[in-house]
């Protein structure tokens, strides 16, 4: 029985590792639901403000280039939502300028010791930001559905 559970568990993990990459929506309904580029900009501005005031997570962002993060988030939300944007996924680290500075989602987060609680706090702030901008819950959850699997890359503790 134990062996069986381990085997099933392993094959399920294998299957899940095959499906890692999140693909954006092919239609732009979610993008429109978020209010297009304009709406996404407002949401991200509010989101970033909430995050930087959130005692649970604000300290994680002290060394980061906030305007750059804001721009990347807008690109990413726009692309995932099926909008006409291209998320480059690359972050230029301001403290490492000149030494091979461009980092991706995983390497940016690997030393930050981010917990599930922090990841969820961030998600909560995003949901509140979308609520404040009157995004319908069903649309907000469609965006969250695309972001949730990033937990694997972001939560390193």
């Amino acid at each position: 029985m134990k062996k069986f559970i381990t085997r099933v568990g392993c094959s399920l993990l294998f299957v899940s590792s095959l499906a890692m990459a999140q693909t954006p929506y092919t239609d732009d309904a979610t993008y429109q639901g978020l209010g297009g580029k304009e709406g996404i900009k407002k949401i991200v501005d509010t989101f970033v403000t909430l995050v930087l005031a959130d005692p649970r997570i604000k300290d994680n962002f002290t060394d980061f280039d906030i305007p750059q993060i804001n721009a990347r988030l807008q690109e990413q939300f726009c692309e995932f939502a099926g909008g006409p944007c291209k998320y480059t996924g690359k972050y230029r680290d301001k403290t490492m300028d000149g030494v091979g500075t461009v980092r991706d989602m995983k390497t940016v987060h690997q030393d930050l010791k981010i917990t599930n609680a922090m990841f969820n706090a961030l998600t909560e702030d995003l949901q509140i930001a979308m609520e404040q901008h009157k995004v319908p819950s069903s649309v907000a959850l469609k965006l969250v559905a695309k972001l949730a699997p990033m937990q694997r890359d972001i939560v390193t503790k």
Partner: protein
Amino acid sequence: MKKIIPAVMAVLVGGAASAQSTPDMGKLLATGGVSQVEGAGGGGITPWALISGYGTRDSWGANAHYTYINTQDYKLGSYGVAIGIADRLELSFANQEFKGSLAPLDKLNIKQDIVGLKYKVLGDAVYEQDVWVPQVAIGIMYKKNKGVRGLEALGVTNVKQLGAKNDSGYDYYVSATKLYLEQSLLLNATLRATRANQMGLLGFGGDRNDSTRLMPEFSAAYLINRQLALGAEYRRKPHNLGVDDEKAYYDAFLAWFPTKNFSVTAAYANLGDITVFNPKKQKGLYLSVQAGF
């Protein structure tokens, strides 16, 4: 099965040691579910694969609940506590009190204690939105019926005198739960191995059947917003007793999560027939409150 308990205890101790000592309240709102009528984390009548409380895998959480169901002829109350450790293990205690309100069962009072243990085996209902694999948990409930009161005139003080083979028993279950965020939907399927009559309130096993049977249970909930979920559940039950034409339970519920410390669930429940003495579908309001950290 007996080997599971020491193994689970080892995980419990290990999990408690690795988890931080203060609760982190780190899970997303509503993702601990509510307290089902036997005390486990779940919906109203069905245990889910979600671990109760708001502790993440680095922490723990706990809550207390009170549930009240009022049908035409019966009242069922349940109170209890649940502890979720490391978002992996759940320990729950509940006490059920079942009362009659219509003659000849108007003095009827049956109490039952339930101890539950649930272990998350694999998956994550929330994060793994890009794979089909649900969160899966296995669970066990030990139930001890405390005897029958109010039927002394008939000489009945124990469920065994109503045809039950035992006054205590175990339920074993496996639950699979998944959030489909794109559809704002939560789905749960549970398969339970049980001999319990009316959850154990009328004992375990009986004159009609005494073997353990597999019973399916289903829940579906639509997430109206971050704080509200609207859903329905179905729970099939065995029919072991000649004196009880036992049927499936159904409910339709609305759960409200104003904060992570408090939730209220209101439902309309259909408990089917309960004993041949009141041969009528028992329907009524279900109200449950949960407070925790």
